[in-house]
């Protein structure tokens, strides 16, 4: 049971997202007096009558000059029940790049709409990106509910439209919550509002404190990318050889049989070491050191897997890319792929589809993928990779596409075709 919730917020400045984030931070006493003073001073310097809470959030000079949020910002707050890491992703500029980044580690997505406008194009896009990246649960905050006179019918309409869209993306009703809020006034953000007696659900903060944190995948078999081989060669530990890494999925106990990929060598876990003592079990998210019973050739880049449920080792696979670079992708591009702790050369051999997240449909055989495009491709790698489907395991189904010449991160890669498009366009029986 983790008591750290990682969430991503998405929405545009116009929806009052910065105000909502500011309100959460302020009402949980996470904004301190000197930070608030700085906001008051800067607001006064600009001749504003009321403090601009977005200044708490917009950290870079160019953001403050242009009055927009450019980059993902990370915020931290805590209540007696939970600690929160909030990835605040801007809506206007490079929205896919930012939303993908925030969503890649999020356990909950909070989307924001203006009650007067309801669900707009950007809301649908954001939700599609969150679904694609496998964020398990969504919240829709219907903001500025005060400006529609706290009208229940208005809220219900927006809530229904959003839930229908989320269902099409694969979310069950129980994974989606819609809340009427006013970030400015504070309705239903932290304090329950007397203005919405017809709303009986939790406030936003109550929900954040109680929403089940999707456990890192325990139900999937053990996966352990080897980061580093620990060989002290000291008088105290002359022959010690341990494999350091963070459990990516599943659980391991001493005595369990494992296979090292891609070589296929088999062994048994003898010990799970940490500086605080040996462990009886290690689960997803824990950084540990494994000592094996046999002398195998294991190095950084290898994957230690449960022997009875090993992933496929492939050098050609289908994947979905979220293209994050200014330079467009064309078929035949030579790139680097970083999967787990392994980096290998690769070709993007084919562009199969480009996803139109607005219409939830696909364009076949596109010529290129441009900045913020999402598409399915086929990849061939120089060295074989042990991959899982992203929908089964976020950690071992994810990879980076890197520019071999200047090291730029070009794309977020997801093994398989987790696009929600199929269900939406061709509803199943």
């Amino acid at each position, binding site marked *: 049971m983790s008591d750290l919730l990682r969430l991503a917020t998405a929405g545009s400045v116009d929806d009052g997202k910065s105000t909502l984030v500011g309100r959460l931070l302020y009402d949980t006493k996470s904004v301190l007096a000197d*930070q608030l003073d700085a906001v008051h001073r800067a607001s006064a310097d600009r001749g504003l009558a009321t403090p601009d809470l977005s200044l708490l959030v917009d*950290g870079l000079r160019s953001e403050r000059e242009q009055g927009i949020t450019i980059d993902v910002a990370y915020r931290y707050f805590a209540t007696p029940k939970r600690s929160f890491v909030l990835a605040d992703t801007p809506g206007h500029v490079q929205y896919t790049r930012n939303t993908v980044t925030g969503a890649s580690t999020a356990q909950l997505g909070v989307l924001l709409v203006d009650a007067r406008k309801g669900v707009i194009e950007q809301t649908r896009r954001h939700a599609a990106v969150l679904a694609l990246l496998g964020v398990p649960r969504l919240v829709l905050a219907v903001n500025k509910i005060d400006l529609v006179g706290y009208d229940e019918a208005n809220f219900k309409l927006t809530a229904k439209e959003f839930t229908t869209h989320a269902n099409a993306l694969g979310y069950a009703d129980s994974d989606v919550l819609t809340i009427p809020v006013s970030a400015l006034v504070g309705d239903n953000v932290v304090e329950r509002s007397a203005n919405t007696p017809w709303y009986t659900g939790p406030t936003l903060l109550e929900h954040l404190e109680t929403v089940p944190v999707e456990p890192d995948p325990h139900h999937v078999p053990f996966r352990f990318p080897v980061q580093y081989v620990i060989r002290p060669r000291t008088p105290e530990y002359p022959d010690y050889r341990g494999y*350091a890494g963070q459990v990516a999925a599943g659980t391991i106990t001493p005595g369990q049989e494992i296979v090292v990929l891609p070589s296929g060598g088999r062994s048994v876990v003898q010990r799970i070491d*940490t500086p605080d003592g040996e462990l009886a079990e290690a689960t997803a998210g824990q*950084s540990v050191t494994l000592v094996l019973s046999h002398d195998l050739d294991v190095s950084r880049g290898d994957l230690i897997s449960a022997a009875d449920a090993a992933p496929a080792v492939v050098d050609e696979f289908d994947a979905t890319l979220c293209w994050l670079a200014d330079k467009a992708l064309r078929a035949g591009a030579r790139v680097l792929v970083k999967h787990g*702790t392994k980096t290998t050369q690769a070709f993007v051999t084919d562009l199969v589809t480009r996803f139109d997240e607005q219409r939830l449909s696909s364009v076949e055989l596109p010529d290129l993928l441009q900045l913020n495009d999402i598409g399915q491709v086929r990849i061939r790698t120089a060295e074989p990779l042990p991959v899982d489907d992203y929908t089964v395991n976020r950690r071992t189904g994810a990879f980076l596409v890197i520019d071999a010449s200047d090291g730029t991160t070009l794309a977020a890669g997801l093994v398989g075709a987790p696009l929600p498009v199929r269900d939406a366009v061709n509803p199943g029986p």
Partner: protein
Amino acid sequence: MTLALDRRTANLDALESEAIHIFREVAGEFDRPVILFSGGKDSTVLLHLALKAFWPAPVPFALLHVDTGHNFPEVIDFRDRVVGKHGLRLLVAHVQDWIDDGRLTERPDGTRNPLQTVPLLDTIAENKFDAVFGGGRRDEERARAKERIFSLRNAFGQWEPKRQRPELWNLYNGRHRPGEHVRVFPLSNWTELDVWNYIAREKIELPDIYYAHEREVYLRDGMWLAEGPWGGPRDGETLERRTIRYRTVGDGSCTGAVDSDARTIEDVIAEVAASRLTERGATRADDRLSEAAMEDRKREGYF
């Protein structure tokens, strides 16, 4: 109470595991990493995590301290003791050397904090360090809130906010061209309170000046500064004996103390939890200079 304690422990386990993962990624992907170590609380926690990440092997990195010459002697003693205890290799870049040979000029206000950047970049270049660990946290300041865990610096050591790479999942991209390096911040997701809770849980020793003690101090810009070679008190500033402690430890000319009776780690945690000021706002004159003070210094190559 028990519940709150459990929550704290679960949270610290996740943060510790993430930091250890980051250390090991750097060890696996870079040729010449170095840890910035000043003896302050964040860098002491950083070193503690590095020791854990590679146990039972020694830490495979050297340490680097940019010494302004205005450091608190208690902290320098502590730094040297820790280095000796763990058999580590420490490089010290003395700002004074750069002033002596004319590469740097003393500022009129006597503050040496901004002077650290050049010795830092020179030392990084001279030693061909390609990864430099720092104890920076995103909760410290709003320019830092947009910092990556792996932060690419160009050949001039500069931070270019618009060239920062998207950071996805826990897959860190450490690729860089010759002459460039990467600053790495394993404590990115920690808060000041997390750091203190971790220090308590792991029983990590710190320099005494983090705990309440009596000291001769004078008031400047709303901060209690200590007497020292950095100048002061000036006219109109008078020394008085107060019970204080330091929330951050840096260059003596611009690091202020806070009034405090917190003599134990438990007292400090209670004080930090109740504080209405950020640690930098309370104690760092250099961050108050302008709306974008930290961003400007980061762009120049500061942390």
